């Protein structure tokens, strides 16, 4: 009979499976929510709650990958995987049958395909912003969300990259996208933003994946060492499957060990790691701005009224960050509820911060929407003005007003702190924003195309089942990958999380310090100074 390992036991206890040894309860100031919503500038609010120790962090994070998954995980995974398969089958049907299976017509020759592409590629931007820009700006709260956001970025880029690949009609000629010398002497058109897109998206995907993977290397090493240590203490641990006599921990040790690339937690390793992290953050920072700028050039460099606008690059970037943070919230709020102890790491303050970003970027896209209208009028171009009036009052008026309601009106709730810290409200707004951002791209693409210059060319776009199936399927792919991430990979950066623990910045302690104030270990230099003056 196998005996549970001490650290496994601790992980189970922290996961709520085994009874807790001690309940680290502290009375909280109701004004501060879960103890993190402190507005006093002199107090540094804690980033990890419940007095978690350094070992607890390891056990919590490693526990997500080591413990049996929550009961909902397998059904959720199978559902997502089934939907992904449906999308895959639809793509196969599209490849076999042709682009005519989509609802495209002579006038609307880009519709859901490019809408979905821009939608997904935009979603990725929150991950890059969190990992790169917030890292350079030393926003410590990013450590709780960066890993999941980076994972989401990569999964979103994967979903996005599908669409340009399949929309070309002859998918087997997709290798013409990059400039490859060939016996047809066909060379990419370097003046076309569609080619810039190929470079922008592939660079983005590569750098994001490197960033994500490199950040996980020390955590893989932790998972490897824990598995290996358990195995040594108890070689009779559980096996993978009843008929597969391989010890789970052995498999873990080898797989995580392979991914850890020989990481030994040495000081030199950490030194290199920090340097490389900073370099990657530096490389990624321009990508946050460049990728969606270039995506916007696909439209802005054309002469279509409604597309030919100089405001597009900044407007698209703001929209991408907006949509990306909505997706982060959409995913992490349920995770926070469903996984044990995740609320200690993703606190209300994180939600509050991200809601503020939603509000700010939502205002930016709102400004861009109104500016487009203003310039359409001010510029005096009849076609341009018609394109915009047609957006708001033409046959696709419902899409336009869905976009305005979701993207401009719904984030206005976040002027209220009560709303920003109400996870249900934040989740609903995040959902609305996700819907709104999809509609934004739909509005830009389809309503601009469907009534272009000549009335004789007016056409409506009607999605077919294949359109819908591939779009829904991309959500299935995204969720499948994200659920696998939650199950098997380190969901938080363990070391970085430890660095932002209150314990990581020790201060002088006197007996009554912090007692009952709910601020955890948030110390300010101010009070510190007072203590010092008080006769230490």
């Amino acid at each position, binding site marked *: 009979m196998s005996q549970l390992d001490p650290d496994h036991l601790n992980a189970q206890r922290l996961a709520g499976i085994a009874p807790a040894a001690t309940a680290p309860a502290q009375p909280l100031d109701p004004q501060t929510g879960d103890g993190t919503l402190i507005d006093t500038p002199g107090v540094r609010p804690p980033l990890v709650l419940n007095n978690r120790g350094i070992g607890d962090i390891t056990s919590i994070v490693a526990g997500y990958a080591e413990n049996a998954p929550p009961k909902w995980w397998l059904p959720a995974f199978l559902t997502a995987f089934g939907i992904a398969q449906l999308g895959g089958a639809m793509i196969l049907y599209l490849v076999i049958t042709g682009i005519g299976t989509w609802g495209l017509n002579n006038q609307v020759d880009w519709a859901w395909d490019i809408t979905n592409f821009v939608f997904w590629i935009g979603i990725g931007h929150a991950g890059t912003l969190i990992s790169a820009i917030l890292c350079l700006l030393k926003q410590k709260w990013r450590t709780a969300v960066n890993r999941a956001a980076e994972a989401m970025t990569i999964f979103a880029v994967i979903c996005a990259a599908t669409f340009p690949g399949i929309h070309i009609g002859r998918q087997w000629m997709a290798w013409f996208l990059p400039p490859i010398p*060939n*016996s*047809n*002497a*066909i060379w990419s058109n370097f003046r076309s933003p569609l080619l810039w897109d190929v470079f922008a998206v592939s660079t983005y995907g590569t750098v994001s994946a490197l960033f994500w993977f490199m950040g996980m290397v020390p955590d893989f090493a932790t998972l*490897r*060492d824990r598995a*290996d240590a358990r195995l040594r203490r108890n070689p009779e641990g559980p096996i993978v499957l009843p008929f597969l006599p391989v010890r789970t921990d052995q498999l873990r*040790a*080898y797989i995580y*060990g392979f991914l850890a690339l*020989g990481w*030994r937690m040495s000081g030199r390793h950490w030194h290199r790691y920090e340097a490389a992290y900073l370099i990657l953050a530096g490389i990624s920072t321009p990508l946050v701005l460049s990728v969606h700028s270039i995506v916007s050039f696909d439209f802005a460099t054309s002469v279509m009224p409604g597309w030919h606008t100089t405001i597009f690059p900044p407007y698209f970037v703001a929209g991408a960050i907006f949509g990306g943070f909505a997706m982060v919230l959409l995913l992490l709020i349920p995770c926070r509820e469903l996984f044990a102890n995740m609320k200690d790491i993703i606190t209300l303050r994180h939600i509050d911060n991200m809601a503020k970003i939603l509000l700010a970027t939502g205002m930016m896209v709102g400004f861009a929407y109104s500016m487009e209208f203003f310039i359409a009028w001010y510029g005096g171009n009849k076609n341009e003005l018609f394109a915009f009036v047609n957006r708001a009052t033409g046959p696709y008026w419902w899409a336009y007003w869905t976009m305005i309601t979701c993207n401009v009106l719904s984030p206005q709730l976040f002027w209220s702190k009560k709303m920003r810290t109400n996870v249900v409200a934040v989740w609903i707004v995040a959902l609305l924003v996700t819907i709104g951002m999809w509609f934004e791209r739909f509005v830009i693409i389809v309503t601009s195309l469907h009534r272009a210059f000549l009335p004789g060319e007016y056409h409506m776009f009607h999605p077919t089942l294949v359109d819908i199936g591939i779009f829904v399927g991309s959500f299935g792919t995204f969720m499948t990958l994200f659920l696998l991430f939650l199950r098997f990979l380190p969901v938080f950066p363990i070391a970085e999380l430890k660095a932002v623990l209150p314990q990581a910045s020790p201060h002088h302690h006197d007996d009554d310090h912090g007692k009952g104030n709910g601020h955890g270990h948030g110390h300010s230099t101010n009070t510190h100074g007072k203590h010092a003056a008080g006769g230490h």
Partner: protein
Amino acid sequence: MSLLFPKWTNVLPTVFAVAALGGAATAIGGFWYYATPKFWRVGYMPTQPGGGFSHQIHVGKLGMDCRYCHTNVEKSYEANIPNVSTCYGCHSDGKLAKLNSTPSHKEKTQFIRDAYSKDASIDWIRVHKVPDYVHNFPHHVHVNAGISCYSCHGRIDTMPIVHHVESLSMSWCLDCHRAPENHVVPKDKIYDLAFVQEELKARREGSPMTPAATAVLDAIQKAPPENCGACHY
């Protein structure tokens, strides 16, 4: 941890890196060499009915003009394949002295007379074919612009059985469209393949274009079309 992966695994990254680089180089090199028309079109020599029409005998030895059989090459998109009656014009009973004197010759050309008497056609197998999205390569345009048969078909007059000489890939088309001076010849020399071969070879080796060739180049304004619509319309 040190026991998890034995020491010999340290060479694995190097092995994988070398294998990956070698594999990539092999894949690229293989593709480069094998997956182009240069490899899989050049040298194509199907077995023709009746053992094939020998251009070597008819053109090289007997000195027939290309246009005797390919009658429409100057007027049509197609350099037409002659019908059986063109063959029968010579290979009918009693026409050629050789037909009666040499039994093997009679035997070899019997399929022509058989086809003629049955009012059937001979199913020659097509050797040169451009894809259908290269709308009918216009033979008349090229021939009238001073491009010899030799430029695309090689020394047909030396081939006992016709085979594919050039790749006919798009980049090969463009090579000439972008540098027609490497191929135009005076119009009276277009069907003189031996002459054209020598002339173009000399030109490649640096001798200047003859005034007659320059005049042809000037006539086409030195500018064969390079736009997509010229061929793909």
